[in-house]
């Protein structure tokens, strides 16, 4: 018998990510049993669609999604991250209704502490 199982998120995926100003930030999203569904990244600040699968919708060239088949991971890379890139990002599976995983990105200025 064929068992149709719905996609789900790997609960181990970090929900809080800290990135550095001027560097690349990486948000990962691990999805099991994706099947024929699509993984998209959306920025909550303005409900802007960033990527759909490996396709980049946003015209902001700093965004790119990469699929790592070996661990079912869909990584959103934000190049040259700025303070204003901080906020909530949503990894969304195109099920009906959609399944969402929220990742909070915090962008900090690197500081050096002299002990």
């Amino acid at each position, binding site marked *: 018998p064929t068992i149709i199982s719905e996609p789900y998120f790997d609960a181990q995926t970090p929900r809080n990510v800290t990135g550095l100003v001027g560097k690349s930030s990486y948000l990962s999203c691990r999805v099991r049993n994706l099947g024929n*569904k*699509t993984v*998209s990244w*959306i920025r*909550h*600040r*303005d*409900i*802007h*669609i960033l990527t*759909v699968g490996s*396709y980049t*919708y*946003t*015209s*902001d060239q700093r965004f790119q999604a990469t699929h790592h088949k070996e661990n079912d991971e869909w990584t959103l890379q934000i190049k040259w991250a700025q303070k204003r890139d901080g906020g909530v990002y*949503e990894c*969304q599976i*195109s*099920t*009906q*209704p*959609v399944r*969402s995983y929220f990742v909070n990105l915090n962008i900090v200025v690197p500081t050096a502490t002299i002990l």
Partner: protein
Amino acid sequence: STEALTFQPEFAEPIVNISVAIGRDATFTCHVRHLGGYRVGWVKADTKAIQAIHDHVITHNPRVSVSHLDVNTWNLHIKSVSEDDRGGYMCQINTDPMKSQVRVMKSLFTDNLMITVKKRKKEWKKVIFGIGYLDVVIPPDFIPEDTSSDVIVPEGSSVKLTCRARGYPEPVVTWRREDGNEIILKDSMGTKTHVASFRGEILKLTKIARNEMGSYLCIASNSVPPSVSKRISLNIHFHPVI
């Protein structure tokens, strides 16, 4: 070309809000100008569910499809709407920065905002376009377990006739007498009021007289056709009169 450099895409008209009865089809149209190589995307605002990008449907909702009439006219179709479909639908263009302003979108439907935005014409194009609201309305339907059947009561007693209906928006129930006679309402002091109709789910008749016998109609309506009505017979038995 120079034209592509001069003209950035923009919204040409606001997305029209629509109100559709459950089970019917709905279409939103996003009117754009100078789209060029940019793409139109549709997102359901509350769930942020991506519906479609350009010609591609992303959602696995089989009732959703897209079409375009020409390069300026982009449609999102929702077949046989259900209550879950209610909400805002956002049309976005992948310009940098993206066209559509969420900050304003949240209060888009308040009159105040409409006025503020209209006053500042320059802002109009930037903020007001890009979202259309789908309201799914449901015609009234009686809830059988909360609706009275025919009754037989002795003269002088009291009776409560109930008609409850569901629907969206909330239906209003109106009572009338089938023979066109007036309904007699009595308060605790015994003061009588004769009315042609009574509005409310419960019609309370007290110290019933034999002339109040007959068929009562309750009509549930909410501006979504069809209205529904139910006939309830009120039978009064009284001692024989010689």
